[in-house]
């Protein structure tokens, strides 16, 4: 019966369809248990994942799939326990340095063999770097999203402003907005990471992607002149009063109303901010997106695009089924489906997938595929080691409130770097 299904599917034409179901066909003999742990605990992503697992189950009726959804924040601490004690066969996590502790501890399975596969090697090339540690790949991505400046188009139009192309225009726009009695940017730094986004962009635009990555890897001193230059650029904005007051008391969600009410004109954020902004009543005529402009013309543009991933724990019981599942997740059709506007509303990782017809997703996809030659970063707290990320983001927050403390902050970060990356 399985054979007949396979032949039937292979018989059916559609080239794209063939590519993805050919995987399913070749692994059709899967059986046993498949335990999947997910951190997609919010209602929409959860439904998306469950539907996707349902489709995988249909292809492999003999497989007994057991899905556990864990709260996204809880998951970050629980993963340490379940990877060692009671590992599932598949688990979600994050790319880049965030997976390093588990790779180093030998808790993630090396899945380089999957990446040898032409289907994956060609279509997922853009995220390969983020999945690679020590020359091997340790999982597959399933979604990612762009970062950039989301702004109130109506305010820009009212003031006769254009999307800025460079740093001078960026600051001139900001001055015009300030003169109109508004703030340029809303931000909530209570949970620190939002300040990391600003640092990512300012540093990548000032010193380039490679320098940024070296800094994240602890190879450059924080008291280096180039780092100082980044902070000088940042200070220009802070001294202008570009950011909303008291941002250190707000979470990123609590900072949204400033933009919705028109007290602030823009927000440097990930694409996930679009949904709450739309829910709060902003229409697509009022809301638009631009890429963070160039600061230093000598460095190539690089972007933040955090990637969420699937991994196979090293101690998993059913690795064959787990590998088949990973292949299934990254297949072009599944990628198109789970990342569309009704589901995750993010960008598919497979180059053969189509991006949903949403202006922000299209702009983001365009930006990441053609206008980010420098490279794609994951985000400060995923690229730097966890400890360094924590200490430095605290420093960024302090700098945003008290820019005059810069020397003290950099000295503190440098001491932390020497301790953490010894």
């Amino acid at each position, binding site marked *: 019966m399985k054979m007949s299904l396979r032949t039937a599917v292979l018989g059916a034409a559609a080239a794209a369809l063939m590519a993805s179901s050919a995987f399913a066909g070749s692994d059709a003999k899967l059986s046993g248990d498949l335990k999947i742990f997910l951190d997609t605990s919010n209602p929409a992503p959860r439904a998306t994942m469950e539907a996707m697992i349902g489709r995988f189950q249909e292809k492999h009726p003999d497989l007994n799939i057991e899905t556990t959804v864990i709260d996204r924040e809880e998951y970050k601490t629980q993963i*340490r326990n379940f990877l060692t004690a009671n590992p599932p066969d598949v688990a979600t996590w994050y790319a880049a340095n965030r997976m390093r502790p588990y790779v180093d501890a030998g808790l993630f399975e090396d899945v380089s063999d999957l990446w040898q596969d032409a289907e994956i090697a060609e279509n997922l090339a853009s995220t390969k770097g983020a999945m690679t540690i020590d020359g091997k790949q340790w999982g597959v991505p399933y979604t990612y999203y762009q970062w950039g400046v989301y702004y109130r188009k109506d305010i820009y139009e009212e003031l006769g402003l254009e999307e800025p192309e460079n740093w001078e225009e960026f600051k001139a726009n900001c001055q015009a907005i300030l003169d109109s009695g508004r703030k340029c940017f809303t931000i909530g730094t209570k949970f*620190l990471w939002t300040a990391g986004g600003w640092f990512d962009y300012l540093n990548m635009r000032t010193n380039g992607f490679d320098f940024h990555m070296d800094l994240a890897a602890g190879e450059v001193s924080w008291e280096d002149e180039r780092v100082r230059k980044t902070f000088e650029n940042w200070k220009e904005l802070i001294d202008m009063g570009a950011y909303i007051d008291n941002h250190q008391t707000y979470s990123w969600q609590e900072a949204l109303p400033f933009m919705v009410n028109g007290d602030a004109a823009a927000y440097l954020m990930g694409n996930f901010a679009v949904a709450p902004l739309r829910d709060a009543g902003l229409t697509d005529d009022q809301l638009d997106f631009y890429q963070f402009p160039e600061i230093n013309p000598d460095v190539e543009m690089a972007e933040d695009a955090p990637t969420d991933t699937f991994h196979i724990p090293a101690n998993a019981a059913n690795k064959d089924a787990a590998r088949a599942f990973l292949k299934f997740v990254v297949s072009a059709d599944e990628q198109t489906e789970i990342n569309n506007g009704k589901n995750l509303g993010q960008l598919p990782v497979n180059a053969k997938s189509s991006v949903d017809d949403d202006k922000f997703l299209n702009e983001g996809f365009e930006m990441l595929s053609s206008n980010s030659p420098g490279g794609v970063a994951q985000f400060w707290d995923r690229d730097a080691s966890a400890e360094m990320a924590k200490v430095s983001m605290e420093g960024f927050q302090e700098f945003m409130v008290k820019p005059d403390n810069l020397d003290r902050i950099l000295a503190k970060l440098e001491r932390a770097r020497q301790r953490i990356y010894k």
Partner: protein
Amino acid sequence: MTDVSPAVPHYPAGAAPRGWFHRNQQSLAPWLFLAPGALFFLFYVIFPIFQSFNISLYEWDGLSPAEYVGLSNYRDLYWEFVDRDAFYVSLKNNIIWLVLYLLAIPAGLFIALFLNQTVTGIRIYKSLFFFPFVISQVVVGLVFTWFYDPTFGILNTILDWFGLGPINVLGNERYVTYGIIAAGLWPQTAYCMILYLTGLNAVDPEQIEAGRLDGAKGLRMLWFIIIPQLKPATFIAFVVTIIGALRSFDLISIMTQGGPFGSSRVLAFYMFEVALSEYGFRMGYGAAIAVVLFLIMLCFIAYFLWSMYRDEKRA
């Protein structure tokens, strides 16, 4: 006792001497009854203390094998102290907490004296005053966060009436700790109040009568007659307040996450951050902080035990 009981012998006369257990039953029984509790205490309290001491000598991320580093975690703490870094800030805040949190005791006493009267509906007032202790610390934290909110909070609205500038209590590194302590004092005062209310019930009316005959009134009556009789309540209030101050964790976690830029951390929160939070997992370092916190607590524990021992002896 054993001399009395042979009236009803368990064994026929001339049988072998009674078993060891039977001979020592009297002295064994209390230990047997204590055993379950003592075992749990040993396993869940005493043993982890020593385990913490041990872990604090290692560098361990909870995943890879632990590496013995001697006292280097303590050396790092020392340098953090010298550099006025996170550890220094936490320690300083802990001391501020310890001192200011004790305000809950006089405040609780004052409210208890105020409520210790018979008027219609006093029960309702008493329960209203006790209310903050019943609600969760998380709720207290949230309520005060909104209260302090720099743009919409009622505190700044009120200050505005008097033409005073807005202050961002939780966003200012100088005020933040005091702001959180004020939030913590609200339920803690209620707790002390309850302790004193029960204490006041036990105050001997004859002594008050006698004091009155001798011409004691007002503050003198309070200081020389009432407060000495409230000593047991004061002792318990002191103990719970000190413990509450040292483990002030939930309010900080809810209200500021230790921020802005780490200026409202206390040792308990710093320990959590270093060892267990999203960016943490320096188990050894966390354990070293735990040891420091334990040593601070030990001073108080020693004092508590000593004063209890002294009271027992006197009684």
